């Protein structure tokens, strides 16, 4: 059994957050994924989301969300898991296949360059745009400071 890569949570998160339809076009450019068998799913279920209001205090049950998940084993013997918000079982399966292939040192570098790097760049751009838009609505109470 190989030790799990420390980067694995990062790439699983990146793939799960990628907008619908963003992964397939990237895969068209990437080397083909190996064949696989399904171990579990794709199946749809509910997951309880817990959180703290304002980041403080005890965690409480915020509500349930729908998730799709899938686990596969590829031809090289790597087991991959895909979890994604919503009901898209095919996307969960695709993420599971990518997860399995990314664990394989022989495939990791090319897939990282073809899929993960563009997704990470797109996510960074999206996040910067959101932050810029939010910054425009920020209120600085300088009047209160100067009137004192």
């Amino acid at each position, binding site marked *: *059994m190989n030790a799990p890569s420390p980067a694995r949570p990062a790439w699983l998160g990146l793939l799960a957050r990628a907008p619908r339809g963003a992964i397939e076009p990237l895969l068209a450019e990437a080397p083909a994924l190996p064949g696989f068998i399904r*171990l*579990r799913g794709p*199946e749809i279920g509910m997951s309880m989301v817990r959180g703290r209001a304002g980041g403080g205090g005890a965690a409480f049950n915020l509500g349930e969300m729908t998730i799709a998940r899938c*686990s596969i*084993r590829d031809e090289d*013997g*790597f087991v991959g898991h895909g979890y994604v918000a919503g009901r898209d079982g095919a996307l969960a399966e695709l993420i599971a296949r990518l997860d399995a292939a990314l664990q394989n040192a022989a495939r990791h570098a090319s897939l990282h360059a073809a899929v993960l790097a563009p997704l990470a760049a797109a996510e960074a751009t999206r996040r910067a745009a959101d932050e810029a838009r939010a910054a425009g609505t920020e209120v600085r109470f300088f009047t209160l400071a100067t009137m004192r």
Partner: protein
Amino acid sequence: MTSLTPGFASPLDAQACFRALLTAFGDPGRAVTLADGLAPPAGLSSAAAAVLLTLADATTPLAADLPAPALHWLGFHTGAPFTTPETAEFCLAGSAPPLSSLRQGSETAPEHGATLILDLPDLVSGRRCRLSGPGLAAPRETTLPLPASFLADWAEQRRQVPRGVDVLLCAGRRLLALPRSLAIEPA
């Protein structure tokens, strides 16, 4: 690298197995045959694997004396936590432990009694027994692959109704239920 293999191909397989379990518990002593299609890892019969995939989940502690790949497979597909036979809801074994060592439930919550799943080479060898009780219009004579010590344990357990252990005998794709309400006597 791992040798993890698939479980049920479809949720319908679990429902078919649940239906077979209802049939088996409703007609004690009659062996039912499960559908083909499950390929469990070594050390686990198809019937025992199907029963655990159908019934066990994250809320049912499981005790099983199996090789590591089979334990990994059960853990992955059921999500059940592993524990000791004394605290397990489902106990899988190749030969019967003393029934009194398993969870018995209580007078007010007899459903907390354990289910013992015996994974056996076959269901036809063994000693002649006469079964009677709920589900059987007339006593049924059959052969059960169980030692004399089990029958003594069973008679002892019958004195503390409704507490006790339900037993499932599995071999290959066949399974046979012995609900705790059943009386088993040597024929």
